[in-house]
């Protein structure tokens, strides 16, 4: 019984997602999935082989985590359903913020990667 309900919930969710999400957001979601997989693979490498250049591992992992967070912020700000909450921030402004934050993040990451 519960198995059925979990599967039905998931399939319902996927249906809703495919139909009602605008394309722009799906593009960002694909990017999010990419970043998450990259981070997970880095972590797996660290677990398997060891943390030898620990600073490099940290910088790569933080880069993935930071990119994920910034992309989520962009997605939230671009979503037309959230327009009421971000009256002063246009999508272009959100994108510009996203780019600027990424610059700072990558400066730190490259500094730390050693």
């Amino acid at each position, binding site marked *: 019984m519960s198995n059925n309900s979990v599967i039905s919930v998931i399939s319902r969710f996927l249906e809703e997602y495919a139909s009602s999400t605008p394309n722009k957001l799906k*593009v960002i979601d694909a990017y999010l*999935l*990419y970043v998450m997989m990259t981070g997970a693979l880095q972590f797996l*490498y660290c677990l398997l*082989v060891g943390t030898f250049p620990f600073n490099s591992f940290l910088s790569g992992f933080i880069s993935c985590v930071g990119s994920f967070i910034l992309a989520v912020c962009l997605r939230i700000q671009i979503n037309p359903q959230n327009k009421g909450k971000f009256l002063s921030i*246009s*999508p*272009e402004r959100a994108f510009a913020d996203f780019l600027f934050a990424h*610059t700072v993040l990558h400066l730190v990451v490259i500094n730390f990667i050693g």
Partner: protein
Amino acid sequence: MFLVVLCVVFIQCQVNIYSAFYSFIPVSNDTRDLLLATVSEDSTASQIHQSVSALSALGLPLASQEVVSALKALHVLIIILALLTASRLSQQAELGDILEEIEDLAARLDDLGGVYLQFEEGLEATALFVSAAYSLSDHVDMEPPLKEDQVIQLVNSIFSKKSWDSLSEAFSVASAAASLSNNHFHVPVIVSAQGPAAVSHSHPFLRLQVTDVLCQPLSSASVLAESASAVSSKSAVLSQALFTLRDGVFELNFMASQPASGYYQFSVAIAGDSRFVANHVELKVKVSTRVAINNMDLSVVDKDQSIGPKTTRVEYPTKAKASFMADGHQNFAMTFQLVDETTGVELTPHQTFVRLHNQKTGQEVVFVAEPDSKNLYKFELDTAERKTEFDSISGTYALYLMVGDATLENPILWNVADVVLKFLDEEAPGTIQAKTLYVPKPEIPHLFREPEKKPPTAVSNTFTALVLSPFLLLLILWFKLGANISNFTLSPSTILFHIGHAATLGLMYVYWTHLNMFQTLKYLAIIGSLTFLAGNRMLAQKAVKRYTHQ
């Protein structure tokens, strides 16, 4: 000295007269040196005054601190001279005020570490003070206000030097000695042992010299050893024993109380005269004895105990006739007892060593023989265990027993026997080298930090490819979603923005490989501002386009 005084007085008068008439008086260097030399501790008060006034009237520099200390020393000397003078006056005169000066002056004495008491003006002043104080006190027949420990400390200071700088200093010490040994109130007593403070069976008497400060023996004294206790066990051996006087020396037959060998703390009291000061003394006395070795048994014991031990008894100072053999299967053992020759009491001296000396190579190895609970000394040699000390060199070793102690009169070095030691021949070194202690030691090369272990290149390459693979997934997903760049306008701001953005990414790569943070920030500022302006323009255009579409 008298001439100097005259000169100074003359100069002083001249200066006073001339300064009234002239404003400038020429002074030669000799004159100035003469005036400065007069200001010293040996001058009288009037001399000091005259030379100081002359110097200041002439406008010459003065050493003011020197003058002050010279004046202070004068004060003490004046009082002492007053005391000495008063002691020769008639007893009917009113000497009470001068007597009080003794107490005031005694308060000015400096206590140095609780051992010495003296004036800061020096030894001569202290010794003269003592002699003056006692002569005045004797004269008026009143006890001087000096306590017993003050008198002891004064004696320590006055008689601390063995040679004196000047005749007057020597005189002051002699005068103090005479007054301390011959006054009505305080006579310090000096107690010293004649020779070393040691007794033994051959010298059973403890001899003490009891004298006054002038080393005159105090025959009227009675010397009593209040207690004598062993330093190690603190048990009392003697109590209230009187010394007898013989030829000016007080002696006591300490060996009659049959003390065991060791050190004893004596507490001696000297009585006989109420004037005696410092008449309780502590002394450390050594009792020595002769040692005898009993029951020296040498044996060769089989390790597996299958054959019984063969014991040979050796008498001191002979040597055992046969030599003993010890190899891997047998141990060599030695037992003996050390006793006091006269009393037969067992002794445990500080040093009981067994020395094995290889006559051919000159090697020697020393072991310690230890006593068990019954004070029986045992020494066992196991060749297998001890081969490192011997460097596995087999041969005949002469065995010596060494016994020594501070309280033994006859330390022993006895060649007891010869021992043939056999080690496994393979382990013996080819050449016998003397142990060199003072050659340069082998160099220690510096070990740089080992680089950390890295995983094999194949593994890291695989993972690099793996980590880059989600990018492909992303491109595939984007393609499937229909993401495109159809809205790409070819306006200058767009192109500039994209170039700037690419340049930023390129700068990041260059930062990783070549640059440091400061250079990167500099370039980033330039590229970033261009990108920002272009991007701002581009996004504004996009926003306008979006609004017009809506």
